[in-house]
């Protein structure tokens, strides 16, 4: 059978065709919402109409089998309406209250994990990793799985001082919002790229390869029609490899992950913040990266114990001070923690007031 007639430049279907009738009716007219359970909330409209959202965990990578299953569940209890959250959870949209408990029962029976709403650990925003990316220095999905296995209770029931947003990026290109997350993992390299001088002249544009280097470590090598790297200037970011594949930077022996903390994107109370380096390096230890889980646990436990209600991780750290953060988490402070890149002088302590 011939393929149907293709069309171009049509854009996505209109969102209105995917909204449940109760949303179409009350669009822009919601009054308030209440969190009924860690995985259930109700939104109440000015008209008095209600919609219940039941949130379940997703590994983000979904097979068509699982997609069909959630489509069947939505068809049975939600008039066929569902959505995904910006953190890749699935939300079943219930318009008729009498379907709420049967839906929850079926989700429980089928092993779906409800939760993630309110001051908890929600799903981890992450990148493609070894599953499908050329520049991954670690596997994102594996790290997400082992971290969420550890923190599952903070998704399904336990409360924290505020929500904790985790992210994982499998290289410093950071396709996830790692640079502004409460706690995040970013995979890093530690060895300079190995240049294949045979391939560079054919595969790479020399000026853009040189321009890709943030530290100016790359210069032309006219004799070889290639480039050379000033070793003491290279910070192993890997941007040159993305522009010029024959500058191989992967090195399983020396690749691993760093942990950053204290970022946020919301403006509530304090402005959005960048995440800052808290653990410079942990070696890749698949399949379950126990050292990474342990370090993140130390940070989360210290936050849970020390933060005031409504404080995000970054706000808690700013209040207690970084010296106290390293003390209460027990994480070592090293040369790598002190910035020697672009904004170094903005980060030096220009005050004689600090804690012991």
């Amino acid at each position, binding site marked *: 059978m011939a393929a149907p007639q293709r069309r171009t430049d049509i854009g996505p279907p209109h969102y209105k065709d995917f909204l449940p009738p109760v949303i179409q009716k009350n669009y822009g007219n919601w009054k308030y919402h209440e969190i009924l359970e860690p995985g259930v909330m109700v939104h109440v409209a000015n008209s008095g109409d209600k919609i219940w959202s039941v949130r379940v965990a997703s590994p983000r990578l979904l097979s068509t089998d699982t997609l069909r299953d959630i489509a069947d569940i939505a068809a049975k209890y939600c008039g066929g309406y569902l959505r995904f*959250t910006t953190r890749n959870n699935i939300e079943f949209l219930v318009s008729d209250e009498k379907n709420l408990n049967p839906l929850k029962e079926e989700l429980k029976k089928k092993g779906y994990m409800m939760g993630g709403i309110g001051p908890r650990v929600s799903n981890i925003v992450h990148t493609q990793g070894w599953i499908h990316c050329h520049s991954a220095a670690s596997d994102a999905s594996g790290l997400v799985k082992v971290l969420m296995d550890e923190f599952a209770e903070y998704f399904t029931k336990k409360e924290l001082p505020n929500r904790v947003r985790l992210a994982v990026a499998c290289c410093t290109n950071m396709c996830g919002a790692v640079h502004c997350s409460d706690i995040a993992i970013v995979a890093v390299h530690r060895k300079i790229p190995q240049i294949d001088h045979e391939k560079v002249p054919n595969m790479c544009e020399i000026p853009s390869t040189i321009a890709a280097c943030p530290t100016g470590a790359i210069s032309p090598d006219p004799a070889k029609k290639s480039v050379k790297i000033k070793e003491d200037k290279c910070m192993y970011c890997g941007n040159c490899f993305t522009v010029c594949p024959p500058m191989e930077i992967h090195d399983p022996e020396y690749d691993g992950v760093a942990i950053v903390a204290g970022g946020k994107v919301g403006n509530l109370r304090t402005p959005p913040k960048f995440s800052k380096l808290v653990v410079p390096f942990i070696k890749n230890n698949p399949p379950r990266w126990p050292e990474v889980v342990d370090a993140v646990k130390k940070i989360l436990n210290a936050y849970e114990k020390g933060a005031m209600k409504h404080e995000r991780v970054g706000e808690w750290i700013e209040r207690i001070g970084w010296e106290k953060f390293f003390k209460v988490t027990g994480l070592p402070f090293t040369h790598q923690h002190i910035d020697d890149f672009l904004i170094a002088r903005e980060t030096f302590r220009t005050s004689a007031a600090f804690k012991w």
Partner: protein
Amino acid sequence: MSELPKTPLLDELEKGPWPSFVTEIKKAAKKNLMAKDELAQLEKSYTDKRGYWKHGGIVGVRGYGAGVIGRYSSLPDQFPNVANFHTVRINSIAGFFYTSDAIKMMCDIWDKYGSGLTNFHGSTGDIILLGTNTENLEPLFAEFSSRGWDLGGSGSAMRTPSCCVGPARCEWSNIDTLDITYSITQEFQDELHRPAFPYKFKFKTAGCAVDCIASIARADCSIIGTWKGNIAIDQDAVKWYEKNGMNIQEEIVNRCPTKCMSYDGKTLKINDEDCSRCMHCIAKMTKALKPTGERGATILIGSKAPFVIGATLSWVIIPFMKMEPPYTELKEFTRKVWEYWDEYGKNRERIGELIIRRGMRDFLEYVGIQPDPRMVKEPRRDPFYFWKEEELVPNSKL
């Protein structure tokens, strides 16, 4: 279908309470050779602690330069079914709403023409169809587009715009995030499908300063809803929160960053003139506090991940823009920004990096926007700066 490959390391990731991506790959691998080789190659990555994917190669559908990301196994002899295994991005629905029928329709096409593996969603917000061979791309696109679905962005193009749930299901949204997203996606179809920019350009629209779509951290153009009027207070609802265990003084008044609130145990007061609209009090007492008056958006530009000059957050360019369909002001502003980028941007230079390189004055004058203190955290510290010839008037009193 033959048996699944042995994956002792990945099997460890089927243990534990969180839903397992390995289980998902295995489900697909039971009926699909591409998914089976993906599984086997991933096990090898876990064994050797490194990825085995190569990037590059121009691959896509006829007439488009974006929407398909070329991906090749670096071990094609061992894993022939993923020797070429490209990602296809499908433009998602604004607000990420779907129906069961739409999901099943996509599954039917994807089982026929691809690996059966997906992401809902990729980081930018596309539906990711995770891997198919080159020869499947055209029929796959015909199946989707004939049913009203189109590809998303990739490469040096406008990327698929995305937004928070907005007015569809949130009482805080000051703007119609879904409609803005749909409208700019339709307006700029050419810019989305045919890469013609120095580098990628991302739009993200959030209904309020809570910013559930993280627009301020990862969009070249961040559109964040805001309002200009006062916050209306329902004093009975304030009492309801107090009765239900909230310490109003501690949790609301003391956390206000501008100290514009007070509570005497009976009445909550807000000095609206000093409110910076951070959303803390509204988010914690959603039944009691409501923004009023004129609604619109703050337009910020420039956020991106660290390459090349370090991570940036978007900064304010237009403190307040009215947001009503057909969003002409936003679209005209966008075209002006792209024109500036086209004129001065270097290859692989994001718009924010360009503005930092050439200076805000250069950019603001080009797009015709007056300086405003809301654009900066603080004025400059150093006493050296540029003057233009026309600003130096002889014998003037200034």
